[in-house]
């Protein structure tokens, strides 16, 4: 099977998405034996409030569930709640300052105790407790209180009109945890509750039977799961470690595993593996954009720590929009897609390429134009004065940049290609790649994290959770810049700071009308990309995973955890 047919399969399954639960496959719980999942990053904890790693969030999705999730088209669907509250059904207050959820009746935890609104309230308390270091605190931003109405009803109050109230308790990042289990784990004690963090009691289709840190998690079907015929699998082995290639091989070539996450491999490699015939790749497009982030501050090691890569030291030439624009239009995005992603990617000029209402019709960067890039630089006064092929600034500083990304074959190919194009416009590039664990690890002590940004440009992909880009775009506010006094935490890694942007974003937060939100969102997107080229989007990446051909019920979801519907996965006979 080639990648093309695989993708067509994926598209086909998208079409049937709403029928996921109505799948004809029925039977008794645990009938299909063992499900084997491989993630090339190993799970280190099963509490998404203590880790932002996708692997940890995805693995905990087997056990703990939110009130509602997004389906594969990005529409909210109820999970623990009876329905998604809206203004129309009265769940969301008219002034957009509160949302009221109603839990399904008869829900029980895997230990048999009932799920109550207290658990929901507790979850909020848990994440917002002082000193808890909650990794999902952003989800609860603006929440002033969570009030228990009755045993099954709970109201979330916001500090102002919140047009998108589906942040708390929605999606894989904010599932409901059991109040009883985590009662003693509030605040600074959160990390100490190893037993709870490693084996949370949940409502999901599976319960943890064995947890080996950074290695393998074993699950068994939850006997108390609310759908009697689910899950189809009696046990799950969730193995971690290694690399994407080996994971892909284990699923598509040797058939040892049923599902592999995030096949970020060159299209020809994936195609080669799919020839193995036991598994296929599956992909779906969301808002995942591979982009180059430009550092507006000076990362030079000559600068003292504390000044280096902070707003105190503006970058000598990357602060010039002309340079950034030239860098952007020198790139042939079509070719990047061809080399790196094939049909699982498409060129883009937007930071927010989806959902459609937020997507700007920005196509200016799609055609590579080396000549215009050169002209731009000439105009801006960067000339190659010493004839070494590298342009210099007026003071003789060469346009020489350090281009950093995580270690990954496709990214290294991108680096090589982009380096070549940039050299054609007289910009010299030094490449560096850092192990993904370190690069995305967020360790404040490491100089190699993407937040620390000790490089001139860096490349990675990011996406927002759910369908609303508000908080995603909010990442580029002035005060979100990582600095030494924030322990280098913060999402605004470019150190972008534009009062106009900040003001426009504030407007977004108080706008409820969807079309208007779309317009403002697109405008914010353009301020970062088209207008300033602080962010140079490259490829709108489909998410690619691989599953065994005998595994049914897979519906790749880019808006939530990939394993969102694992309760419905089952074995099919081919």
């Amino acid at each position, binding site marked *: 099977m080639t990648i093309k047919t695989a993708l067509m399969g994926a598209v086909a399954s998208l079409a049937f998405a709403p029928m996921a639960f109505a799948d004809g496959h029925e039977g008794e719980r645990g009938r299909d034996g063992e499900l084997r999942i491989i993630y090339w990053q190993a799970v280190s904890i099963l509490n998404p409030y203590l880790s932002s790693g996708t692997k940890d969030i995805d693995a905990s999705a087997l056990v703990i569930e939110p009130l509602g999730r997004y389906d594969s088209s990005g529409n909210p669907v109820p999970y623990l709640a009876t329905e998604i509250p809206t203004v129309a059904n009265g769940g969301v207050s008219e002034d957009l300052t509160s949302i009221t959820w109603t839990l399904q009746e008869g829900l029980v935890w895997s230990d048999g105790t009932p799920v109550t609104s207290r658990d929901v309230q507790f979850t909020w308390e848990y994440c917002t407790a002082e000193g808890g270091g909650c990794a999902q605190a952003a989800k609860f931003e603006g929440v002033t209180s969570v009030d228990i109405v009755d045993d099954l009803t709970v109201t979330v109050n916001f500090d102002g009109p919140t047009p998108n109230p589906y942040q708390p308790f929605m999606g894989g990042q904010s599932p409901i945890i059991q109040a009883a289990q985590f009662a003693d784990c509030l605040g600074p004690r959160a990390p100490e509750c190893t037993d709870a963090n490693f084996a949370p009691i949940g409502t999901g289709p599976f319960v943890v039977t064995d947890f080996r840190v950074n290695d393998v998690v074993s699950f068994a079907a939850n006997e108390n799961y609310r759908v009697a015929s689910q899950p189809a699998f009696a046990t799950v082995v969730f193995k971690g470690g290694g690399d994407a290639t080996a994971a892909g091989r284990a699923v598509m070539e040797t058939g040892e595993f049923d599902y592999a996450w995030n096949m970020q491999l*060159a299209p020809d490699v994936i195609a080669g593996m799919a020839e193995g015939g036991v598994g296929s790749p599956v992909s779906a497009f969301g808002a995942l954009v591979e982009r180059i982030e430009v550092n507006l501050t000076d990362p030079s*090691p000559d600068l003292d720590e504390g000044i280096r890569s902070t707003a105190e030291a503006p970058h000598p030439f990357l602060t010039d929009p002309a340079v950034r624009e030239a860098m952007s239009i020198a790139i042939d995005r079509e070719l990047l897609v061809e*080399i790196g992603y094939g049909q699982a990617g498409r060129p883009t000029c937007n930071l927010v390429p989806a959902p459609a209402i937020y997507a700007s019709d920005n196509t200016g960067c799609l055609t590579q134009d080396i000549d215009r890039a050169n002209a731009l630089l000439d105009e801006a006064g960067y000339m190659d004065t010493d004839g070494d092929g590298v342009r210099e600034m007026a003071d003789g500083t060469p346009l020489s940049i*350090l281009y950093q990304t995580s270690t990954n*074959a496709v990214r290294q190919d991108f680096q*090589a290609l982009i380096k070549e194009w940039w050299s054609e416009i007289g910009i010299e590039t*030094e490449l560096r790649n850092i192990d993904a664990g370190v690069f995305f690890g967020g360790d404040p002590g*490491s100089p*190699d994290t993407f937040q620390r940004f000790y490089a001139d440009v860096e490349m990675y992909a990011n996406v927002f959770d759910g369908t609303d880009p508000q908080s995603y775009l909010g990442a580029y506010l002035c005060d979100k810049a990582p600095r030494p006094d924030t322990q280098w935490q913060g999402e605004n890694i470019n150190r972008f700071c534009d009062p106009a942007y900040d003001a426009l974003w504030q407007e977004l937060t108080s706008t409820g009308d969807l079309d208007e939100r779309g317009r403002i969102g697109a405008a914010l997107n353009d301020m970062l990309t088209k207008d300033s080229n602080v962010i140079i989007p490259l490829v709108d990446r489909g998410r690619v995973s691989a599953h065994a051909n005998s595994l049914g019920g897979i519906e790749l979801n880019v808006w939530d955890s990939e394993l969102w519907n694992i309760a419905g996965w089952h074995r099919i006979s081919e």
Partner: protein
Amino acid sequence: MTDATQQPDRVRSQWWDIWDQFKTHRGAVIGLGFLIFITLFVLLGPLLWQVDPGKLDIRNKDMRPIYTILWDSEAKVSWAKPLGSDNLGRDILANLMQGGRISMAVGWTAMLLSVILGTLIGVLAGYFKRLDGLLMRFTDLVLALPLLPLLLVMMLLFRDSLRATFGPENGIFILIVVAIGITSWMQTARIVRGDVLALKEREFVLAARSIGTPSRRMITRHILPNVLSPIMVSATLGLATAIITESALSFLGLGFPSDFPTWGKILFDSVDRMTNYPERVIWPGLCISLTVLAVNYIGDGLRDALDPRIRGQ
């Protein structure tokens, strides 16, 4: 017999004897031949094959080696890319040469560094009794350190300052070479120390002492030349180890930047496509293995040739 007009013969260095013995070790001679060949290949090859190894040529990507035509007439081949090209169209032959230059350079310099360090510490420990305990405990200590964390810490600590001082490529080169060098000298030091201890008991050292030769000249004149054979043997092993270690570093993502080919990296990068493009792993794999093999055989031959017991036969 004591005719004053007779003048001494030309110095026929004992190296000739060693060479004579060395020549009898077939493996070593083949090894030496290969090492010379591969060295010339990476040094002079780029002069003859003037293709930029970093040059991307997307249109001609994924070319097969020219010999593929022998069994697969439909293979995408071109005389312009005799060993084919990779997925970005980079010429594999040129990359092998460039990668070989770096691998060999890393190998040789790291080996020299570790041998110099090992010899220095070994000789000092063996010769000066006072330093012996201290230096050997230090050696044990370094042996006890797990190398990988050490390498990682070194990378983090010194990468930027070296990059600033020597430029990006030289900086990382120095870092890798130093990292390999300072983590692989211990064996040499132990062997050298043992030999120096034995040499110290030899009468010619005593004889030199009876002349009043000071320690410095004692070491340079009498000790060092006589520990040369274990040093040379550990040097040949060190070269092989350095090339291997560099490729292992590439595997762990600690090696050179991605646009800086080495044999280890080319091999590592091609493992994913091993089934479709076996030549991309075979050639760098062969280069590494054969070089290491050659060097090991040379080491074997040298050990035999430098051993007077064997040479005397």
